């Protein structure tokens, strides 16, 4: 532990007036009874999110046990073939998409605001929407298993197996629409976390002082922004192929099944690190506490997190070594797969050095952290083995791979998450889990895991393919399989014991949380619905170790904003590098709208899948209505309050404009996601073009260049009109002309798209060739944006007519203008990509 430093005087040294705390409590109070579900506060949403993710862990775990029962003995007929296919597909899909990614985001939603010293995340209603969309969509998706409609093509859903020819039922559609939609919820969460980490840290918490866990979540948020669009684009293409016969993945019509693999794994491999890095961040937070010493190599570990985040994007094709890629391409990917081991090893050595330097406390988190290191390092070593191409050719799609990725995922994520639950459980109601029972839980899980999965390396080397329904006794795999089944049930018993203990701890009466592990990070400051009584000023990397008086000062309201300055929920927005206070961020209160919006969105996708179109469109309208109603209430800073006193002599403006505003940054990040989805569609077009000998293929024709240029010109004119509308508000401060300018801009955008549509329809038949289908996909994506403008332009005009747009309330205009200009750029980029490819191939 570092030596305590001299504390600087607190920003609000005087005693606080009576009644101030009561007002703060009233503004942030969680409603009781069924109204609890309208709560948007990060603590409540975070707990719901974690509980739901753990429910999916248990459900998918039960499916895993069914798989093990089926494989326990040779020639077993416990499950039918069809059921077995659905069970293993759902086990992988639910574990990856409904447990692993959501649980790490959920823990972030719960922990980060407190760890960063903020009262809440910057967009609480977005968090609530993301959670409810995930909960409704995920539960409905899981229920498909009970009616025999669950997907059965494996968790990575390779076509042609999942095309209509081999999967004619609705099973694959449930995966494509369900998972594609749940990914959108993950992206919403990522945007929230990135903006929260960059702009709502406690004053003085510079990037250098920011906890390593927050660094990990920042890197993960950025990875989600660039990785998830690929799978969203992939699922859209496969669904378009299944619904409209656009042959992106059908080789006979110029498509390529490998296109799916590229898109899926460009998401799928970074996803492994998206799951692992938050766990690594938690480990980097817990290890210094249990060792009682600062993290060794802290800066190197932060650099390693960044390195892993970037290198992980060069590894996608190592899942495709047997797919017939060029040998040099595979070698580049193989090299990158080994290079990523270097920054990963930096983290592991940093943790070992910290344990070595400090004095280890033996408790439940320690056991799970040591278990994590043992299992994860073994998984990493087999990872380097399968990065060697000839070795991968031997073990690809065998149980060796099943063993490898369970060592990486359970070792790298599940064990740290269990350590985290033991470590942070006291934050919920002050009660710790039983240390005695924890030893049973750990040893059952650790031994059970190794007994279950280590033999799979051997069954794999003996040739047992993954996903096999059963096997003959003469294969010699029966003893090892039986052992794996015994281990899996031991592991499950450990999880059950944990659940019993957690249930018991949560039912105990609430007690003071304190700082039970003597940790250094801010989440251990006394906290209520409003977060900390006052927003702490941070002076070091390990504030609770370095400033022993901090807890008392914060609790006495001697730091920033110990009250509600505007009578609403608020937090302080700070600058991204030095965390200097910039403005008072007014937060929205509880509302049913995110829940209704999420319900409508989930229902829209699920009803669309089962072809109940009328009901689907009604649900879609409900979703759009709820989101617009929620937006309508936003962007209204409190009248008459231009600035507030956050601390003695420190006045902060209320709200921010343009690039200073957190909502501007969130919109920009959303547009980066948007551009990444567009880039994935463009990649699909380039990929299918490169399979051609002549481009455009015979029988297809691009519209005249003059028509394309006119369309681009109309888009530019529309953007120009929006720019003029913004300028009118900037210069004159009134929005009288604004609605007409925006509606004229909309007319330009609609005319541009009508021109595009007319041109494409004349010379391209998307069901004839993958090349034409890829262009149609690009055009459809542009069309989706035009539809979005069709909603946004009248909404903006209505706000202007109702007097809700002025110099202070203009975030709506600024953000819609960003979307508008992006749509213009995307339209021009689509024309450029489509026109350039035939020229390059001439």
């Amino acid at each position, binding site marked *: 532990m570092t030596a305590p430093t001299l504390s600087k005087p607190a920003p609000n040294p005087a005693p606080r007036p009576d009644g101030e705390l009561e007002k703060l409590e009233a503004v942030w109070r969680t409603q009781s009874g069924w109204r609890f579900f309208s709560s948007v506060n990060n603590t409540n949403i975070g707990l719901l999110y974690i509980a739901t993710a753990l429910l999916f862990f248990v459900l998918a775990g039960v499916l895993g046990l069914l798989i093990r029962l089926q494989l326990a003995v040779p020639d077993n007929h416990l499950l039918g073939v069809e059921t077995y296919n659905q069970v293993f597909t759902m086990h992988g899909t639910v574990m990856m998409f409904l447990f692993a990614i959501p649980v790490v985001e959920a823990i972030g939603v719960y922990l980060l605001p407190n760890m960063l010293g903020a009262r809440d995340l910057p967009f609480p209603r977005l968090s609530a929407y993301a959670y409810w969309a995930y909960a409704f969509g995920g539960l409905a998706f899981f229920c498909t298993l009970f009616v025999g409609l669950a997907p059965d093509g494996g968790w990575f859903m390779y076509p042609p197996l999942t095309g209509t020819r081999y999967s004619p039922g609705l099973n694959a559609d449930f995966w494509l629409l369900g998972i594609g939609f749940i990914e959108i919820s993950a992206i919403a969460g990522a945007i929230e976390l990135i903006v929260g980490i960059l702009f709502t840290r406690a004053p003085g918490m510079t990037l250098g002082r920011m906890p390593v866990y927050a660094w990990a979540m920042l890197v993960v948020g950025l990875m989600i922004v660039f990785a998830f669009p690929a799978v969203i684009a992939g699922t859209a293409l496969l669904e378009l192929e299944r619904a409209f016969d656009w042959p992106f993945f059908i080789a006979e019509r110029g498509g390529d099944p490998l296109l799916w693999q590229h898109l899926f794994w460009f998401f799928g491999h970074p996803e492994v690190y998206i799951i692992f890095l938050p766990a690594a961040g938690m480990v980097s937070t817990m290890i210094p506490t249990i060792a009682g010493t600062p993290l060794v190599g802290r800066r190197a570990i932060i650099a390693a997190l960044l390195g892993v985040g970037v290198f992980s994007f060069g590894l996608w094709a190592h899942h495709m070594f047997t797919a017939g890629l060029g040998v040099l391409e595979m070698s580049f990917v193989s090299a990158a797969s080994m290079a990523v081991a270097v920054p990963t090893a930096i983290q592991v050595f940093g943790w070992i050095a910290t344990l070595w330097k400090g004095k280890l406390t033996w408790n439940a988190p320690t056991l799970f952290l040591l278990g994590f290191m043992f299992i994860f390092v073994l998984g990493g070593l087999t990872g380097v083995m399968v990065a060697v191409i000839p070795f991968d050719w031997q073990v690809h799609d065998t149980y060796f791979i099943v063993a490898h990725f369970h060592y990486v995922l359970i070792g790298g994520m599940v064990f740290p998450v269990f350590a985290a639950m033991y470590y942070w459980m006291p934050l919920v109601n002050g009660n710790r889990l039983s240390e005695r029972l924890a030893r049973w839980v750990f040893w059952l899980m650790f031994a059970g895991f190794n007994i279950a999965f280590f033999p799979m390396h051997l069954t794999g080397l003996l040739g047992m393919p993954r996903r096999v329904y059963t096997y003959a006794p003469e294969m010699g795999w029966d003893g090892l399989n039986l052992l794996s089944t015994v281990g899996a049930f031991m592991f499950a018993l450990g999880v059950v014991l944990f659940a019993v203990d957690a249930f018991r701890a949560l039912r105990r009466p609430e007690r003071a949380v304190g700082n039970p592990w003597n940790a250094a990070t801010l989440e251990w400051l006394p906290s209520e619905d409003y977060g900390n009584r006052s927003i702490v000023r941070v002076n070091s990397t390990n504030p609770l170790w370095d400033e022993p008086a901090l807890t008392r000062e914060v609790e006495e309201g001697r730091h920033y904003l110990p009250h509600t300055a505007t009578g609403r929920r608020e937090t302080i927005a700070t600058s991204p590098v030095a965390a200097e206070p910039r403005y008072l961020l007014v937060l929205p209160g509880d509302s049913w709208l995110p829940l209704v919006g999420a319900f409508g969105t989930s229902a829209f996708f699920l009803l669309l899948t089962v072809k109940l179109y009328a009901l689907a469109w009604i649900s879609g309208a409900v979703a759009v209505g709820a989101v617009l109603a929620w937006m309508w209430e936003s962007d209204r800073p409190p009248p008459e309050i231009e600035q507030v006193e956050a601390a003695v002599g420190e006045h902060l403006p209320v709200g*921010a404009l343009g690039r200073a505003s957190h909502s501007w940054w969130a919109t920009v990040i959303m547009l980066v996601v948007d551009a990444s989805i567009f880039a994935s569609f463009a990649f699909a077009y380039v990929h299918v073009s490169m399979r051609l000998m002549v481009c455009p293929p015979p029988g297809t024709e691009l519209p005249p260049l003059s028509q394309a240029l006119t369309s681009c010109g109309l888009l530019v004119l529309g953007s120009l009109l929006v720019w003029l509308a913004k300028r009118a508000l900037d210069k004159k401060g009134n929005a009288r002309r604004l609605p007409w300018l925006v509606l004229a801009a909309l007319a330009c955008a609609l005319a541009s798209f009508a021109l595009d549509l007319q041109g494409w329809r004349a010379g391209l038949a998307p069901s004839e060739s993958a090349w034409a289908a890829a262009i149609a996909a690009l055009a459809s994506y542009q069309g989706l944006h035009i539809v979005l403008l069709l909603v946004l332009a009248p909404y903006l005009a209505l706000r202007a007519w109702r007097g809700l747009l002025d110099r202070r309330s203009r975030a709506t205009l600024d953000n819609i203008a960003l979307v508008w200009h992006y749509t213009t750029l995307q339209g021009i980029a689509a024309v450029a990509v489509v026109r350039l490819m035939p020229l390059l191939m001439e």
Partner: protein
Amino acid sequence: MATGDHKEGFWKRVLWAALPLLVWIVHFAFSYGLAAAQCSPVGMRPGGPDRLVLAGSTLGAFAICALLAWRARQVLSRQGSASGLADRVALLLAVLALIAIAWGGLPLLLVTGCA
């Protein structure tokens, strides 16, 4: 209302620290893209991908990262204990990118052709 950017050089710092990783991304994407294009039906090149161009790009990327590492080292020794997180991260990432680029260039010595 707060307006405009806070003058603390956020993007400058991010770019300074992350530049080696950007060099790695460009090098990797160029190498993979060129190899894929020169092994595609329409762009098939006799003898496989152009290893001279690939070797040149690898040496170029390596040299840029070496330069970035050297510059980061200079900044650190000039500033001593006053150096910030961005400077240290810049050095570490330059070294990581150097290793990854060198390792990624090795197949050029070992592999020929497309299949």
